[in-house]
């Protein structure tokens, strides 16, 4: 039995909007084990963004427990949360969020700059390795404006890998990409997952879920479905099935 990366128990998150209390999460519980590829699905307003923020240690639950890699997140200070984000989580955003006019290599190095345990040489070495993992070894000096959307997202994936996180947290990571490119990115995620990296993927696109090993569906702040995907589609195969583009 592989170890649990994420442990969530009776997690609630409430927001106060004026005199009204909005229950974004109404007491959910689930675990994520090492090596899993989980998609969290739900329509807008289902609470998936709130869950993502809490999973990413950007937000704190109102009640319940959240444990990541054995660390109880509740009651940690802003600085302690920053350290957890830095050492345990790799973020991937829908809009890539790369630093403009900054080379791919420097973008990938960014998380390690906030980790004083990593030396400058080590930082560079790891960033190069991460970029090679996502297939951009030959574009390290390019700035985001010189890269396509898919390539930019690959840089973002490399950035999320560079600190050797216990989990990669992707927020609609294919939302800005066309079908072909999004399959390419998904196939990269599947490859990374095969190498043992735990991935949590928040999306509202059902076909993305078919590439993952498990799907959690949220609705109105509750989990309505949590199932293992017995026949995981290969994104690489789907990509091959797409009609060839005219050249």
């Amino acid at each position, binding site marked *: 039995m592989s170890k649990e990366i994420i442990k969530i128990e009776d997690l609630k998150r409430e927001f106060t909007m004026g005199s009204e209390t909005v229950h974004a999460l109404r007491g959910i519980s689930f675990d994520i084990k090492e090596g899993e590829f989980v998609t969290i699905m739900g329509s807008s307003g289902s609470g998936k963004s709130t869950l993502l923020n809490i999973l990413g240690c*950007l937000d704190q639950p109102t009640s319940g427990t959240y444990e990541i890699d054995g660390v109880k997140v509740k009651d940690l200070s802003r600085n302690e949360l920053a350290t957890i984000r830095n050492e345990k989580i790799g973020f991937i955003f829908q809009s890539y969020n790369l630093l403009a006019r900054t080379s791919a290599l420097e973008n990938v190095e*960014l998380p390690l700059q906030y*980790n004083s345990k990593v030396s400058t040489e080590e930082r560079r070495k790891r960033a190069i390795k991460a970029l090679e993992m996502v297939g951009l070894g030959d574009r390290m000096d390019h700035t985001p404006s010189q890269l396509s959307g898919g390539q930019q997202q690959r840089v973002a994936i490399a950035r999320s890998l560079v600190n050797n996180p216990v989990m990669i947290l992707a927020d609609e990571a294919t939302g800005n990409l066309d079908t072909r490119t999004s399959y390419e990115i998904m196939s990269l995620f599947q490859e990374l997952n095969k190498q043992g990296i735990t991935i949590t993927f928040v999306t509202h696109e059902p076909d993305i879920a078919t590439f993952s090993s498990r799907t959690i569906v949220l609705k109105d702040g509750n989990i309505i479905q949590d199932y293992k995907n017995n026949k995981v589609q290969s994104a690489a195969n789907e990509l091959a099935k797409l009609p060839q583009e005219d050249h």
Partner: protein
Amino acid sequence: MRLLNLLKIAYKAIVLNKTRTLLTMLGIIIGVASVIAMLAIGEGSKESIRATISSMGSNMITIRPGTDDRGPARGSGGDVQTLILEDYQLIKEKATLLSNITPVVNGGGQVINGSNNWPSSIYGVNPEYLDIKAVGLQSGSMFTDAEVKSASKVALIGQTVVENVFPDGQDPVGQMIRFNNIPFKVIGVLEEKGENTFGQDQDDVVIAPFTTVQKRILAIDYLNQIMASAISEDDAPEAVEQVTEILRSQHKIMETEDDDFTVRSMEELISTFSSTSEMLTVLLVAVAGISLLIGGIGIMNIMYVSVKERTKEIGLRMAVGGKGSDILMQFLIEAILISITGGLLGVILGLGATVFIENFLNWPTSVALYSIVISFAVCAVTGIFFGWYPARKASALDPITALRYE
């Protein structure tokens, strides 16, 4: 995060917005440059006043009869006859901090040489006078103590007198002149000294033994003043006190009574005249300081814009592990880098302006090192002070909101 990385980020942010940063810096540049230039002008005029006064003999101490505030009807110091030769002899004997001392009697009159004549002043002194006033001889020689003792009719004349009574360019030394119809043999010509700070022509003088002037020209038995020089400039204030004490006891002045004489050192004169220029300097620097303040506000403004523009970047940095303090330092260092670079450019511009003022406006200037150090330090402090609040605001951003900011 390491300082080097922070510097790199700040440098990048500045380079990416060259024009904007340069315009922001301009406030600081002008502020620093004007502080340095203003202080240089102030220092320069102070030094030039000091130099002119020093050219009159910087260790010089003058003792005049009378006081500034005696009785309801005040006469000018020279009219009072309380200073006599015995006073001079006593001071010469007792004062240990004086190197030279001479009695002075003076009066006005007509210098005549053949058909040329010129209204001038005659000073009756002893040979030490030249050292006290720091005047050199252009030609000839000074009279001797023996000539003073015998009340010889010998004289030295200044350049203005030479030009007016010897217009043909002949050598005055050895010639005879008359002063108020008393014949004098010219034995020397004084070096040119020019005008003093008060516009008085220092070359329009005739110098003769005080015995001769006292008896033959003025027919008085008192002295107009006593001039002396202190051993050094630093000893001058103490020498003034020494002379005052000697004269008070000699004149039998009671504890409660005011002096019937005035002792002054050049140092006092210098400070009197410097105070005006000092006040002007303070005003100029205040104006320059205000422009530095405005420059600082410019930095604050641009830092706010920078924080706003880069909200998303701040969100990302926080998401990947940047702490509030990292973000704070990033923006603070950017502000300091702007202000220090502006300060450096300001120092260069200020020095350039000083050179320009010196050479093209012919104003005396003197760049004091402290003005550079101070304005530079003020710059750094300005950066920290005005960068702090925007940086603080950036560091307090909520990462979720910052990430979603469009």
